[in-house]
Structure formats: C-alpha cells, structure tokens
C-alpha cells in the first residue's frame, strides 16, 4: 500500500470511529443530561468526524484529479470530471448528507419540538450520512485489500473488520428503539434484526478476506459497545431538563449490546463450509435460518436474565439504565416482557417469517459482498 493511500485509509477509519463514538456519547447525553445545543462535545465529535472524512477525501479527490500520479489516477473513478477512489466519493457524499441534515434537523426541532426520538426523517438523513462515512472508509480499505499482496492483505482485512464493527454499531444504535429489553422476546424484534444484521454480516463476511470475518466484525462491535458502556458510566451527570422522574447521577449508557456475535460465528461456519459450493440463494436460506436460530438461542435466555435478574441491574450488565424522563410506571414495566397483542401470530410463525426475512436479506448481502470482492478502485 502506498504511503499516501495509507494515511487516507487510516484517516477515514479514525473519522468513522469519531462519528460513532460521538453518536454513542450524544445518545447517552440525551438520556442523562438532556439539554442540547449544537455545541455539545458529542455533537462536535460527530461533526468533526464527518468533516475529517469529507475533508480528507476532498483533498484526495483534488490531489488525484490535478496532481495525481498515473498509478493514483489508475486506481480512481470518475465523478463529474474529478477523480478519486470510490470510497472517497462515498465519504464526501456522506459528509454532504450530514451537512444537509443539520438545517433540516434544526427546522424539525422548531416545527415539531426537540426530538426525543432517534428515528425521525432528519435523523435518517444524518444516519445515512454517518453510514456513508463508515461505508466510504470500508470501500477505501476494501479496494486496497482487493489489490494487495498477502502481507498487506491481512493487515487491511483487520482494519476492515474494525470498520465492519462500526457499521454494525451504527445499525444497532439506530435500532435502539426496537430493541429495548422488554421487547427482546417479541416477534417484531426478531423480524427487525433479521432485516438488518444478516445483510450486514454476510456482506462483510464475503468482502473481508479473513476466515472469521463476520465473527471479527461482531467482536469489534461487541468490544466497542461494552467499552463505551462501562467507561461512560464512570462520568458524573445530572439532568438539566425536567420533569425528572429517575435519579440520574452519572452518564446513562446504552443497554448491553445484542449478542450478534453468536450468529456471526454461525454465519462464518456456514460460509466456510458452503460458500462457492452451493448457489447463493440456497446459501442465503442456510444463513438466514442459522442466523435466526442462533440469535434466538443466545438472546432469548440472556434477555430473560437482563429483564428479570436483579444481578443484571448493576453497572456491568447495565439493565437499569433508565432515562431521566422515564416515569415510575415505565420503570416498573421495564422488568417484565411486553406481551404479544391479542390476535397476533404465534411466535413460531413469526420466527419462520423472521427466518424468511433473514434469508432474503442474506441473499442481498451475499450479492453485495460479491460485488465488494471485485472493487478495485
């Protein structure tokens, strides 16, 4: 890998880390302190990450277009007459999406009130921007991995697994509202996770040239989520907004990460045995079924522990991470699972549907991973 390419790849990864740590910090800020301005350190970290990624890629684009060596120009793509690697364009686009979301989000707060929801249209624009920052970093490193010789390739593949962990983190954080503890035994939770994670895991598993690629990505995801969860709780905080229903004395962290790592191991094993030997649709069905089965086997009993056991309510498992504005009735309900609505499909049927969703998204993921394997620029 050339030195110039190396700094760009590492800068993109650092930027993606900044953004995701900033997002985690920001959500924790909203859960604990509440009061929000554009200038909170968490916001600044997110914006800085976006600007670093966009700025570095912008520089690379200008450099490659006007001063690039023949080798640099040969490993770039055309974009409106400018030249840069595909990942750089995706990073720049992501930076643009993040910048676009800022005035939109500001108007949204003025029009509909300061949001306490994660999933709102301007936040989706922001999340897509953030996702693109991570995806841009992924593709920058991926193109190099795909061109690299053996020694470089291993190093690049581990860097990719780190970015894969950031992408899983982005998805998991965005799904926070659908993965609250009382919902971890509900059909909807397994359907939504089936929509998102098999797609990401199969893409990463196929694209990253590691034998345990999905597992490595999930391990980075789990490690970062746990580290942030344990560290952020060490910082004191008091709510600056009211009504305050919960006694908050330190930063409240997001819940214990989902046990994605268990089905990730299963996906790696399935791909090691069958990838290249059976057609992608058949492989996708196997991956989908394995994902739902293993995720269910791991998350279901762990959720029982988190929801019902007093042991889980300490800082380590963080199962009493109540937002300052959660009412006491909510707290009481938090230690019980949400019951299925009357007339809902039996759970077994819903799980079959989840397996079907997981198979479909796995197929898309496998095909996208196949494309990623071929990216050279």
């Amino acid at each position, binding site marked *: 890998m050339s030195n110039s390419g190396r700094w760009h790849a590492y800068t993109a990864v650092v930027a993606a880390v900044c953004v995701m740590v900033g997002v985690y910090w920001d959500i924790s800020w909203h859960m604990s302190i*509440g009061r929000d301005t554009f200038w909170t350190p968490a916001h600044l970290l997110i914006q800085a990450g976006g600007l670093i990624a966009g700025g570095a890629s912008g520089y690379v684009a200008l450099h490659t277009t006007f001063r690039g060596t023949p080798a640099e120009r040969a490993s770039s793509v055309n974009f409106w007459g400018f030249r840069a690697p595909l990942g750089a364009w995706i990073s720049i686009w992501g930076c643009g999406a993040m910048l676009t979301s800022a005035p939109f989000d500001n108007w949204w707060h003025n029009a509909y*009130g300061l949001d306490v929801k994660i999933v709102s249209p301007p936040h989706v624009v922001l999340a897509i921007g953030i996702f693109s920052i991570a995806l841009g970093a992924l593709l920058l490193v991926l193109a190099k991995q795909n*061109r690299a010789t053996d020694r470089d390739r291993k190093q690049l593949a581990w860097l990719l697994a780190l970015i894969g962990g950031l992408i899983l983190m982005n998805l998991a954080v965005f799904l926070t509202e659908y993965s609250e503890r009382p919902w971890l035994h509900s059909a909807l939770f397994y359907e939504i996770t089936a929509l998102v994670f098999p797609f990401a895991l199969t893409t990463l598993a196929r694209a990253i040239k590691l034998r345990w690629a999905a597992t490595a990505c999930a391990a980075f995801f789990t490690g970062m989520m746990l580290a942030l969860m344990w560290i952020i709780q060490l910082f004191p905080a008091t709510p600056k*907004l*009211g*009504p305050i229903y919960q006694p908050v004395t330190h930063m409240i962290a997001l819940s214990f990460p989902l046990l994605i790592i268990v089905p990730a191991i299963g996906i790696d094993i399935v791909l090691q045995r069958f990838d290249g030997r059976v057609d992608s649709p058949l492989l996708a069905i196997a991956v989908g079924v394995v994902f739902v089965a293993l995720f269910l086997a791991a998350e279901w009993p762990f959720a029982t522990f988190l929801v019902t056991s007093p042991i889980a309510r300490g800082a380590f498992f963080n199962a009493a991470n109540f937002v300052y*504005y959660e009412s006491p009735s909510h707290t009481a309900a938090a230690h019980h699972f949400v019951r299925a609505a009357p007339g809902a499909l039996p759970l077994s049927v819903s799980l079959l549907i989840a397996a079907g969703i997981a198979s479909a998204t796995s197929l898309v993921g496998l095909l996208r991973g196949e494309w990623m394997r071929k990216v050279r*620029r």
Partner: protein
Amino acid sequence: MFAAALWLLASAHVGSPDVVFDGAAGPYPVRVIVRPPDVVPGLADVIVRAVEPGVEHVTIRPVFWRVGVAGAPAGDEMSRVAGQQDVYTGRLWLMAFGSYSVYVTVSGAKGTGTAIVPVAALATGRLPLSRGLTIILIVLGSLLVAGLITIVYAASGESLVAPGEPFDARRRRRARLVTTISAPILALLLFGGSKWWNAEDNAYRRNMYGAPAAEPTVAVDATHRTLSVTVRDTANFRTLTAPLIPDHGKMVHLFLIATNGSNNFAHLHPVEHDSGAALIFTGEVPALPAGRYRLFGDLTLENGLSLTVTNTVDLPAPPSVVARTDSDDAWTMTSAVPIAAAGAVSQLGDGYTLVWNDSIPLTSRDAVELAFTVRDSAGKVATLEPYLGMVAHAAVVRSDGSVFIHLHPMGTVTSVAQQVFRARDLGDTTAHGRLGPSALAASNAASASMPAMSMSGAISFPYEFPKPGRYRIWVQVRPATRVLTGTFDVDVH
C-alpha cells in the same frame, strides 16, 4: 427567523399565550414575563424585572406539575441585560405537554425568595418551511441524489476495473443498466420518505392543543333565562384530564360580550353540575338585551392548567322578571365607551369614575401597565372592597374576538394555579399526582405570609398585547357594595 413565520393557531388562553406576572419573590417585588414555546419540547423565553436594590442572583427552574420541585432540574442563573440594571433574561426547556410553573428565585441582601409563575406547555403552532430553507433543502437534496446516482454508476462500473485495465464499452453498458434500475428504487425511497414526513406531520397535528368545545344552550320561561354551557374535549389532545378547581371560589368565570359593537358585557359564575363525561355549567343570565354574544369561559384544572373555552351564543329577549343570579355576577350596558387617553374617564355608575392613567400609544409584544384610578363623586381616590379575592378584575378582548384575556393586578396568572404548585411542593398529592383533600388549605396557609394586598383605588394590570388592533377593556371593581364595570377602547400599534 423561523419563529416569525409561525402561525399561531391556538393557546390555552384565546390568542394571548404570553404569561405576565406581577408579584413578589419573597422580599423582592418582581415582574415576570414568560413566552411559552409553540411546540413541545421547546424553549420558553423568560424575562424578569427585579427593581429592588441589592438583588444579586435570579435563577429560573421549570417545574412540571406531576413531579413538582423534586423532579425539576437545578435552577439556571439568568443573565442581566446589558445596560439594564434590573432586567434579567433566560430560556427554559419545557419538555412535557401540560402544566408547568417557572420558579423564579431571587437572592440578595434581603435573603432569598421564590415566585411561582404557572405556564401551559402545549403544541399550539405549526411551522411551515420558509422559502429560503425550501430552496436550500431542494438544492442540497438534488446534489445528494445526483451524487448518489453517480456513485452507483461508478460502483457498478469503473470501480470494478483493475488499475491499468480499460473501462470498456461492455462494462459501461452494465453500469448504465444497474444505474437505470436503481434510479426508480431511489425515487421510491424518496417518495416513502416524503410519505413518512407527512405522517409525522399529521401525528404532530393530532397532538396539537385544541381548546375544549363549549356548547351553549339557553332556556327561557316566564321568570328565567337559563344558560347552560357544556364543555368537553373534542380535539385528539385531551385537556380535561384533571378535575376542575375553583379559582377565586368559582368553578368558571364566564364572560358574555356583545358582538354588535355595543357595550353589553357580563362576568358570570354559573354552577358546575356533576355530569360524568362533560362539564356542564348552568346559571341565570342577567338583564342583557337579546342578541349575539361571544362567550369566554375561564377554567383552572387541579394540575394547575388554566384555559379558556369560547363560542358564540344567541340570547333571546329576557323574560319580564329577571331571576337573581350569583351574587358575584356583574354586568354593564352603558352605551358610551371612551377611547383610551391619559385622563380619559369612564363612568362606573353610583357616582364613581374610572380614569385611564397610562400613556398612549400602546405597542404590542411590549410589557405595558394598564393603570387606572377609581374616583368617588368628590374626585377622591376610592378605597376598594375585594371582588372575588382581588382588588380588581379586567377583561381584554380584541375587536374581532381573536384575543381574550382575564387579567388581575398580578397579571395573567391565576392564584389558584400557583397554590396548586405550592401544595404539590408540600407533598399534598396523592399517588397519582392528584391534590390531596386538604392540599389547598395547607397551601393557602403557606401563602398567608405573603404581603397584604393594597385596596387603594389606584390599580394597574400588567399585560402584553399579542398583536396590534383595537381592543376593548372592561375593568371591574367594588368601591362600595356593588361591583361596577368601566370600559375603554384602545388602539394598540
């Protein structure tokens, strides 16, 4: 910029959302103005004038009715306005829908004291996209869409070509095909996004405050003309979630104001009937002539929320004998309404006059002091008797009926709402946040230490007119035994 573009559709009071309070924070006299946000969660602007020398700090806290001070964040220090010795400003986030109070704490040489200023946190406005922002979003959005299509083309074409190899015609065709297929998918996603936006907008509108409906009926026989007003929630947002609480000893203060420009006006207190789902108020109408009247009803709930309901009612001709009404009911039918000017005089009857003291012109969105003097037939300043627990009451109505407010010398707030918050802070609430049976008595005892009310005939009402226009102001006082009403018209710029 955005706030200026906001359409005001509603407020807990009719067209007059800003709260003005004149009173005391312990030993310090204060004037507090709170401009609540149009959306919730949103920022309220707070302005405090503390004229007493020796004031060192002024802090404000947002206190939600359900949790009281125990669930309020620590106070925020207000900042002194540059060049103004005694004016402080600050902003507070109101996060939940419903009844809040801003606790204004003043500390200084004389110690520390707190004033409670009840405020309603309700979604009352809807913000349209400004032209400038629309253009910015369209330009940025178009760039993003165009950029994304270019990225898809590059991702499915040139990026797959190993360095040094040509991006040949076959690969270009393939890239064009993928791009062509993905364009409608992208369009579909954008369409879905706009649908989602609309759905969020509709959900917001459903949560907007709409005053409960007030449906009047009038029954006439030989000796009675009985008005019944049924009040019930009709908007999706439920307002009447707590029981009513008497304000100045009355469950409702009902104002009837003729729409024909005449000065027929009444301040009545119909009785509430236990009626299950809706609130029903019934009372006799005094000797007002037949015609169409605007009806405004002021209610206060046990959670401290004060609100006004409104409608019009057609009164038939009165019967030959008019039945007695509530002893605190008062009305006027004088024909001449003076235009407000310094020294202008309105006849109160019984030999008393009401003199307008304030300077003219008045400007909207500006704190003004509506100052009057009640004089007896000898021209001396009269001493007043309390009327409904206050030295004076005023009703302010814009000529088109779009603004109505019931004022006291303490401003737009009701003292019972303050008592509600005081009672909650004493812990006199049930598990569900309702007031305990003895709550208000205890809170009244706590407030008995407040400075005694002046009963001088020199009276004033602090207020901010929300918009320009012609307003009519009725002032009600009790200089002897009878409640008398004076009236002025005033142009606000």
